[in-house]
């Protein structure tokens, strides 16, 4: 006899409550990051160390700003999920594991938020 409710059966998420979402998000963000990071790393090599005015005007370009914003969003999600996997694999003390998972989520959100703000500020206000 199946004890699950009809809703639980439809969702198909099992006892872990999240199904394959973690796996799926890692793969989708990784595919998005292929073109984004290729652009981003070339941009970084080209402009790191260049004068302030030159860098800011390059970052303010609408195309560059859009790519930068998308790169920040995709990479923040991807790196948070990746670090989650590393923590779950190697940290066996339950307290430490939960603490690091929270730290990882917080760190990713803060860094991502700051980067997005920086990208938008340069794009709109210079």
């Amino acid at each position, binding site marked *: 006899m199946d004890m699950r409710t009809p809703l639980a059966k439809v969702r198909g998420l099992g006892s872990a409550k999240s199904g394959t979402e973690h796996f799926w998000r890692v*793969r989708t963000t*990784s*595919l998005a*990051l*292929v073109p984004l*990071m*290729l652009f981003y*790393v*070339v941009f*970084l*090599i*080209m402009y*790191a*160390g*260049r004068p*302030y005015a030159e*860098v*800011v005007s390059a*970052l303010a370009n609408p195309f560059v700003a859009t790519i*930068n914003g998308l790169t920040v969003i995709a*990479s923040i999600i991807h*790196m948070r999920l*990746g*670090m989650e996997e*590393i923590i779950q694999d190697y940290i066996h003390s339950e307290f430490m594991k939960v603490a690091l998972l929270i730290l990882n989520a917080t760190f990713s959100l803060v*860094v991502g938020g*700051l*980067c997005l*703000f*920086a*990208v938008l*500020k*340069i794009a709109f206000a210079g």
Partner: protein
Amino acid sequence: MANVTNNRPLSPHLQIYKFIPTMAMSIVHRITGGALYFGTLLVAAWLIAAASGEDYFSQVNWFFGSIIGQIILFGYTWAMFHHLLGGLRHIMWDIGYGFEKEFSTMLAKANLVASIALTVLVWAIVLIVR
């Protein structure tokens, strides 16, 4: 009560197995992932400094322009390429291809060679163009 989990046999760990290319590249994939996680901090610092005005920016930017900064950036580029190519191998396996022993070993070696070649190529092109 005795701790029953204490004396259970452990599953074999890394040092038990013979070191092979696919295994090495799997480990490097995880290490480059971790390195990129923290390398992103440097990129973030550069981006945020650019949004904070010329004084902040010149300090951070000086570091990126220095020889140490450029070496770190070169390493970041390599880690990115290695992780990107490794990720593509994983996508290939996910959709069910490339599990043959000879092929996956060849691809693991190619991953390392291609990541170095692409890093050098991209840096060479950018330095010539700029």
